[in-house]
């Protein structure tokens, strides 16, 4: 934010890292959250899918805000990966149950 000559390379790398976490990590969270809703909501199949898709963007938003609000870039990645893992597990169980 200050004039460009004072910004060290490490700061720039950290911002890039946060941006990547926000864009790709955020999309991953949003997708997996939508998948979980599609598989677990007790409505008809099509309605669950629509609800999941419609609300996914809120998850995306929250992930992006987190990535830029937390203290370090590492925390940004950590904060993205944790819900990703949780949603992935939930989705995996849902898929497995649907198959059996």
């Amino acid at each position, binding site marked *: 934010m200050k004039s460009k000559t004072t910004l060290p390379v490490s700061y720039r790398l950290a911002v890039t890292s946060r941006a990547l976490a926000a864009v790709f990590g955020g999309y991953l969270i949003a*997708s997996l959250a*939508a*998948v979980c809703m*599609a598989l677990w909501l007790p409505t008809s199949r099509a309605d669950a899918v629509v609800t999941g898709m419609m609300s996914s963007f809120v998850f995306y938003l929250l992930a*992006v805000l987190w990535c830029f609000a937390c203290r370090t870039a590492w925390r940004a990645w950590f904060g993205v990966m944790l819900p990703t893992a949780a949603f992935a597990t939930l989705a995996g169980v849902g898929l497995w149950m649907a198959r059996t």
Partner: protein
Amino acid sequence: MKEGFRQAMAWLHTWVGLIFGWLLFAIFLTGTLAYFKDEITHWMQPEVQAHPLDDARSLAVAQAYLQQHAPDAARWFITLPNSRDPGLSVMWQDKLDPGKRGNFVQKVVDPVSGEAVLARDSKGGEFFYRFHFQLQMPHPWGRWLSTLAAMVMFVALITGIVTHKKIFKDFFTFRPRKGQRSWLDGHNAVGVLVLPFHLMITYSSLVIFMSMVMPAPIMASYGADTRAFFSEMFPATDNAPALGQPAPLQSLVPMYTQARAQWAGGQVGRLAVNNPGDVNASVNIFRAGSDRVAQDFGSMVSFNGATGELLRVGGGQSLPALIGGTFYGLHMGHFATPVLRWLYFICGLAGTAMIGTGLVMWLGKRQLKHARTGVMPYELRLVETLNIASMSGLLIAIGAFFWANRLLPASFAERSDWEVQAFFIAWGLSLLHAALRRGRWGWIEQLSCAALLLGAVPLLNAITTEQHLGVSLARGDWAMAGFDLTCLGSGVFLAWAAWKMRCRMAPQPTAERALGLNLTREAR
């Protein structure tokens, strides 16, 4: 980013706003124009005459025309004239070769004489509508990019709200003639005033393309068979295949009457006739989107075309589908009456202004540091160039599009494409101009040029057609007159803006003003 939450959000707001601001400005402005797309088309095709609406007559004319010109088509589509769009549009698709999509042919037919209208070839308002989500890029990249821009807009809105905590207090704060402060107050005031519109329009644009950008849940639930999802969502128009036995098509008018009775008098938007002239012909009558807020794509009545027998009444939505349809309907505004449509238009302009003021402010704040030396670093100069070209340049491009519509001869080959070319050529030239001219002069000259182009539209219309303001006002053709008057109004406003900028420039050198602002900041 070691500061507090609000500072982090302000940082994010600033930078995503800058990077996507130019694109969002173009999307917002062209999308705003798209609220009047039928009216713009009417102005751009003045040959299409408006007649008093008579659906039964229009339908009979359309059927006779298609029977004569496309008896062997695979499919007919008929769009009836309505109060906004006077054209009776017929379209047909040639018989399908296996594995190939048949060609579509579209004609506008005069609902009284039954002859095809020889209107000049023009994309009309449809150009702005398409541009605002396809960005003149090959499918599907434009849709992806515009949806990404919508997501960025969503982030920018929410971070803007967080940054700007004193929403209601600041709403009543406007400090005019204070340079940078006034821009900030203006940015906040438009932002807050139409905040519900901004949130609605941004989120709904995500919802509209959700099955394209967020396909994972469909794949998780339906596997490879994603078509099953769409046929469950939009109950299939399971039309019977052609049998190859000829049978005359019944008159469409009684089916039309029956369909409207099913909807308690609701309006018909479009009719599709599959396999006309076959014993298995089917007629699908779709309800107009203007009937209610929530869009219901499944709201249709289906008939057997050869016997006239009612086959199916579709429609009725589950709650999630209703919510999705409401987002769609609110975004499109098909239901809006003239007053509400103008409100949509004004809200859209406010959104455009919010983005524009944000971009101006980003640059203004950083320019202050360099005001005394008078030398601007390369990146600020780049932002300035893009600011000028993306805002005033776009206005010039829009003006050039309208002028090309009136000046290109009707016989010109690929005429409608050349109108679009004119739009982009003008935009490109304004980018070049902005790169060559120094700051404020770039703004003043481009705003004056746009003011001239738009302000002279009524004059141009009077010279090139017989539909000038005197005629259109006397006949009560409000779409035609409204277009001329709106262009005139925009021209006057832009001229005022250019004049204002010029005045501001003369008495007060920029360095002095910058100093004043710095002093006030220190005093606080």
